[in-house]
């Protein structure tokens, strides 16, 4: 089984946000939200000796994700490749997973009423394509690969060059986004954007989300569609599909 990971090379990253917009374009991310974003970690030091760097954040596809058990509808799950994904058909948009993620990687798409986040471009990968963000990155600062593959760049960067996970004493859930570069840059970014405390949402919100979904299901298009198809077939007889 592969173990997918993303390494951010902070030495290369220039903070240009190409990844953010390529991802937005690929996945129709609404304005104000992002599946991956680039943030400046500020400056440290005294004139004229300063340190500054960028922090690229996205879903960490944690080994022990807090969002999966937080999801009341089973929409959020870990797939066979260890990638944390959202089944939007099951999502009730309650926001439990958004609160449960210590990395702020999830958002609710208000127009669609569902949660979204990075899934390492699962559909692209299945089509044999690399993630939209790594493809577009002018600095080649985002590197995607399989940690089980000892010949991969990510393996080299994580196990030989010591790329770091962003964790804290309290939050150690095995994130699979790693950060490489000068130690002071990696440390600075991690300190500027530490994982937060996983939170839970009010039960009422969860239940109202469920209620909505249940109503949708009850009078859902599936049933109606089936019914229509059934009567249609009765009327016209069985037909062979071309494809």
């Amino acid at each position, binding site marked *: 089984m592969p173990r997918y990971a993303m390494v951010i*090379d902070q*030495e*290369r990253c*220039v*903070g*240009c*946000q*190409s990844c*953010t*917009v*390529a991802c*937005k*374009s*690929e996945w129709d991310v609404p*304005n*104000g939200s992002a599946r991956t974003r680039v943030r400046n970690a500020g*400056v440290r*030091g*005294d*004139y*004229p000796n*300063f*340190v*500054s*760097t960028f922090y690229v954040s996205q879903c960490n596809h944690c080994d022990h994700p807090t969002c999966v058990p937080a999801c009341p509808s089973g929409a959020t799950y870990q797939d066979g490749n260890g990638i944390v994904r959202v089944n939007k058909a099951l999502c009730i948009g309650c926001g439990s997973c958004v609160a449960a993620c210590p990395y702020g990687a999830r958002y609710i798409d208000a127009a669609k009423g569902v949660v979204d986040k990075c899934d390492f471009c699962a559909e*692209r990968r299945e*089509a*044999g*394509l690399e993630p*939209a963000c790594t*493809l*577009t*990155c*002018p*600095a*080649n*600062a985002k590197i995607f690969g399989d940690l089980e593959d000892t010949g991969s760049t990510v393996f080299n960067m994580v196990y030989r060059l010591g790329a770091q996970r962003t964790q804290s004493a309290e939050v150690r859930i095995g994130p699979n986004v790693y950060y490489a570069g000068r130690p002071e840059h990696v440390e600075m970014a991690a300190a500027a954007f530490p994982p937060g405390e996983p939170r839970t949402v009010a039960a009422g919100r969860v239940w109202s989300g469920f209620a909505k979904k249940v109503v949708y299901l009850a009078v859902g298009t599936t049933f109606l569609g089936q019914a229509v198809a059934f009567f249609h077939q009765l009327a016209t007889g069985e037909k062979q599909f071309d494809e």
Partner: protein
Amino acid sequence: MGNKLTRRQFFRNTTGTAAIVGTAIATASPQVHPPGLRGNTRVQQIATNCEMCFWRCGVMAEVADGKLLKLQGNPHHPLTKGKLCARGNAGVALLNDPDRLKYPQIRTGERGEGKFRRVSWDEALDFLGTKLKELKQKHGPESVALFPHGVHSGFFATLMKAYGTPNAAEPAFAQCRGPRDIGYQLTFGRPVNSPEPVDLEESKCIVLIGSHIGENVFTSQVTAFAEGLSKGAKLIVVDPRFSTAASKANYWLPIKPGTDTALLLAWMNVLITEKLYDEEYLDQYASGFKELETHVGSYTPEWAAGMTDLPAAQIRETAHLMAEAKPSVAIHPGRHVTWYGNDTQRARAMAILTALLGAYGRKGGLFLPTKLAIGRIPLPQMPESEKPRADREANQYPLASEEAHGLTQGLINATLTEKPYPIKGWIVYGQNILESIPTRQQTLAAIKKLDFMAVVDVLPMEQTRYADLVLPEATYLERYDPPAIVTTSKRPFVSIRQPAVEAMHESKPGWWIAKEAAKRLGVSDYFPWADPDDHLRRLISPLGIKMDELKALGAVSFDGKPYIEDRGENDGPLFPTQSGKIELVSSVLQDLKLDALPKYEAVEAPPEGYLRLIYGRSPVHSFSRSENNAWLDDLMAENPVWISSKAAESFRLTDGQKVILQNQDGVKSPAITLKVTPAMRSDVVYTVHGFGAQGPSLKKAYQHGFSDTALMTRIAVDQLMGATGMRVNFVRVLPAERA
């Protein structure tokens, strides 16, 4: 007399990519890049060139049912290799911008009022034809000036030359890279050109003087920069502000603005007095070393320390760092270099320093262009203008460009003063004259004197409100443009722009507008090609590439000869200067009786209580052209003004506070957000250029942030070539509630 001859010889070498003299011609058969992945087969992939900025990266447009789904980098593009920046990815939002100009319009209200009536293309083009004929009859063809921009403006350049005017000018010269190209041309015999042939990926030492790669994003340049650094190149960044590039540097030199030439001369002094230059290279290729040695003798690091605010020891150390890496030292010539009015001489100093390190034509330095034998479309003889260009007086600015590049502010002055003769008509294409040219008040005053102004644009920029005729152009995703013929790449290449989708609304491509206008003006002979395919075919026919191949892949590249060792006898002179050598002492400047070696000239310091206004770029915007883009606005909607902690403290200002800037002439900015940082000099304020749109028709961008250009009421003109130095404006930073 002597001067005139020199000038003409000089210009024989300057203009046009295809006219580069003394560069090797690509010989090997073209290499076709293998077809890449196609994804869902039902989606059509159309290869074209981006125009969110001027780098022309290769894009693949994914189109289904005539609708653009998304843009991706084109992996077949030999320079940009599938990379696309934030703006390039956001091209979708330009195409779908609800504020786009949708149909031709003729002004009905006052200039600037924004009242128009919708007209048909026929009426619009007839109106254009009638007006231009009227002006020609009344005042002569010289009375119309063209303000073009970009390679694709060539159709309009042809149109207006055929009409008979010598007057055209784009800000790319006098507000951007003119001084650099002239400075390098004087030294090495050829301009730097674009994309800049800086061998960042192979460099062992990269030197950025005011260049802020990272915030200034041209994809392949960022790729090469990151590659070079990751392979261990040392980095020296000279900038008053701790830029993104500075955060990666071995040395950040927070130089006092305007003193760069002092630093460059001191670096030369160290290299020469300590004999660290590339002696063999200079012996073989350069002339004027002895004079240079004498010239820089007194420019010691100790002397420069007093000018630049940099420690002498640091000036020495950085010189040593370069010397150790020679000849693989990439001193980036910069791009927007119109700073202080002495910019050509600063570019000369950078070129000479490059030569001392043996870095021109060498791996890791600046590489050589490789000429492409591009086809030419024969045109009838252009009418010879009876009058000289209006953008300069007879003996003014001896090295100013003679071609479309010209002097924008010279044309504006001529319009305002009616000297040397009246200019009564303006055609604006691809430029934003109110945001890219300083002294905006003068531009507005000049517009008032016009009988006719036509603007061809994609978006309702503020300037369209002043026009008599507004013609909606199709975006780059909907039109054909002349191909990019790029010689300043290690593999020279041809890449194309072709429509990915049909033009929306009633917008039309520039080539069609120019060709139709030519019919009205009776100059159709100058547009002898039938359609874009015919145009493209004629240009690429000598290169031996197939049309369908080029259209499918978007670009075809050829073997290049980027380094001196690649060049043979048949590849033309290595250094096409007058002497055939690298001219440390410029013979052209000598003939003109001007400083043949660059010297240091102090610039005016800000008065007490004022800070110098400097400006730069954001990676998510291309000046004002992307300001209305919904996706990019989402990432950056306004431009805060940066100030140092020290200056903020002395003015009792705090981070996040609203302030206004008031310049030396009393011009005020709107209220803007203050960003306080310890990491910049305390004698400057910094902002990102291109915000503060004044045209309310840009619903997204209107009054977002402030315009730095509007505060540039003062310019310092380079006497060699007429560029407008724009870092000579000073501002007070006042709390918004008190101002």
